[in-house]
C-alpha cells in the first residue's frame, strides 16, 4: 500500500520545522516515530499535502528529571528508551509499567510517547498514564510555547488542540510531593493489539512508604472502555486523605468500574470489560498497599494480561 502523494520536508531545527508548517500546505502533518501516521497514510485515512519529518531535529530525544523531580519527555524519545529507562524504574512506577506494553518491541523502537499523545487514539495507553499522572503537553509555535494539560489537550478521538503551525515538543509529568506508587495493567488478546482494557493508577503518599502512608494524590485513568480515555475521578477521590485499606481499594475499584463506558465488541462483552477494570484497579492498589498479589496473575485472573516482570 502506498500513501497518497505528499511533499516531504526534513528540517534541521525546531524553528525551521515551525516555519515549514506555517508556510506549508492546507493539510500538514508532523512525522516523529510514524508508527501511527504512516499506517494511516497507507490506508489513506490520512492524506496530508505536506509531511514535516522532525527526526533530524537535534535535542528532542531526551527524557530527564528537573532538579525538583518534574519529568520531561522529548518529542523524539522512543517508547523503547522509556522501556529501558533507569530513571523511570526508579521514580515513575506507572510509566515504567506501561512502557513495555506499548504495541510491540519493534514498534516501540521507533514510536514516541509525545506522538502517541498527539495521535489521541482513544485506545492509546500513554494517554491514560499521563492523565493519571496529571501531565501536560508543551506545544511550540510561531507565537512561542504553551503548556496544555492532557485533559484539555485531547478534544476527541484522533483530535487535539494543536494549531496547524504548532509542534508538540515535550510531555511533562509534574513532580511528586510524596512517594510514588501505582502501575499500568493491560488486557490484550495478543502483543501489539489495542487494549481490551487498560488501567493506569498513579498514587502519591506521605508520612511513610506507599503501604503505610496517607494517600495525598491519586489518579486513575481507563483505556479501551469508552469513546475516549476516561479519568475515573470519583475513584481517585475515594483514595485520598487516608492510607490504603481493603475498604478504600474496594470502593475505588467499584467507582472505577462505574466510570467505565465499555461496549460489547469482538474484544469482549461490556460486563467483562467492566469487571476487568475493577480487577485491575484492585490488583494495582493491592500491590501498592503491600497486601495484594505480587506475581503475574497470582490472583487467578491474569490470563491474557500483559505485564513484564522488572
Amino acid at each position, binding site marked *: *500500500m*502506498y*500513501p*497518497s*502523494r*505528499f*511533499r*516531504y520536508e*526534513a528540517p534541521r531545527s525546531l524553528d525551521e520545522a515551525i516555519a515549514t508548517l506555517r508556510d506549508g500546505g492546507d493539510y500538514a502533518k508532523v*512525522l516523529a516515530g*510514524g*508508527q501511527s501516521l*504512516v*499506517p494511516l*497514510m*497507507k*490506508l489513506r485515512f490520512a492524506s496530508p499535502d505536506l*509531511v514535516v*519529518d522532525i*527526526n*533530524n531535529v537535534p535535542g528532542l530525544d531526551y527524557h530527564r528529571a528537573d532538579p525538583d523531580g518534574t519529568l520531561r519527555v522529548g518529542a523524539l524519545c522512543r517508547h*523503547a528508551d522509556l522501556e529501558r529507562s533507569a530513571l523511570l524504574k526508579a521514580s515513575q512506577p506507572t510509566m515504567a509499567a506501561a512502557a*513495555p506494553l506499548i*504495541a*510491540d*518491541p*519493534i*514498534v516501540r*523502537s*521507533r514510536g514516541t510517547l509525545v506522538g502517541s499523545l498527539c495521535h489521541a487514539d482513544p485506545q492509546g495507553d500513554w494517554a491514560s498514564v499521563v492523565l493519571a499522572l496529571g501531565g501536560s503537553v508543551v506545544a511550540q509555535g510561531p507565537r512561542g510555547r504553551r503548556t496544555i494539560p492532557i485533559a484539555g489537550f485531547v478534544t476527541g478521538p484522533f483530535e487535539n488542540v494543536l494549531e496547524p503551525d504548532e509542534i508538540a515538543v515535550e510531555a511533562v509529568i509534574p513532580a511528586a510531593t510524596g512517594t510514588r506508587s501505582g502501575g499500568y495493567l493491560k488486557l490484550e488478546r495478543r*502483543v*501489539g493489539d489495542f487494549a481490551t482494557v487498560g488501567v493506569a493508577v498513579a498514587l502519591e503518599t506521605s508520612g511513610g512508604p506507599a503501604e503505610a502512608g496517607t494517600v495525598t494524590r491519586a489518579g486513575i485513568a481507563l483505556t479501551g472502555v469508552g469513546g475516549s480515555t476516561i479519568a475515573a475521578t470519583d475513584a481517585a477521590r475515594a483514595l485520598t486523605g487516608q492510607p490504603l485499606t481493603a475498604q478504600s481499594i474496594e470502593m475505588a475499584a467499584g467507582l472505577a468500574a462505574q466510570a467505565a463506558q465499555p461496549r460489547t465488541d469482538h474484544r469482549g462483552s461490556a460486563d467483562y470489560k467492566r469487571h476487568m477494570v475493577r480487577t485491575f484497579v484492585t490488583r494495582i492498589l493491592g500491590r501498592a498497599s503491600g497486601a495484594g498479589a505480587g506475581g503475574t496473575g497470582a490472583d487467578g485472573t491474569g490470563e491474557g494480561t500483559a505485564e*513484564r516482570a522488572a
Partner: protein
Amino acid sequence: MTVVYEDHEDDAGTGIPVRRIRFTINGQKKIAEVEPRLLLAHLIRRGLGLTGTHMGCDTTNCGACTVLVDGRPVKSCTMLAVQADGREISTVEGLATASELHPLQEGFKEEHGLQCGFCTPGMMMAAKALLDENPDPTEEDVRWALSGNLCRCTGYQNIVKSVLWAADKLRAVPARGDDPPEPPDSPARGDTPAAPPTSQANNGQEG
C-alpha cells in the same frame, strides 16, 4: 550506484520532487532518488533487489519486513524510504559472509527454526537487535523481543531455541583473535576457555 524507479505516468505535474538520499545498506554506500511516499521496504526490495526482506501484512503487524536502521529494529513497511537519508540499514542479506553463515542463520538451521521461511528474515533481524543489546538473553527475553514478529508455522518453540543457540555460539566466539568458536552445547560455556569446534558446528553452510 544509481537506483532507477518506475516513472508513474501521472507523476508529471504533481509538483512533488523526488529526493536524493544517501545511505548505507549492509556496509555498502548507496545513492537513490525516491518519491517521498516510497516505503523503505520497497526501496530495499525493488530499488536494491534485496528480496530477503519480506512484505507480509503491510500493516505494521507481522514484522516480516523488519530491518535494522542505525542498529534498531524497524518495520520497513512503516518507514519512508526518504527517511533512510544518512542512516545505516542492515537486512538479512548482510548477516552471512561469502563463506560463512551468521550464527543466527546456523541456529535456525540447527534448531529447525523455520518451516515456510516467510517470517524468518524478520525474526533474524529482530533477534539480531536483541543479541546486539543483550548477548545472554533468557528464554523470556527472546520471546519478549520477538513478540512483534508473527510466525504461522512453527509455534515459535524452535525459533526461540534457534536464537538461544545463536546467543550461545556468539558468546563462545572470542571477541577477536583466531580461536575457532566452540559449539553451543559444549560444557565449556561460561567462564572456561573455548573448546575446539566439532565438525557439526562448522558444517552449517548449506541447508
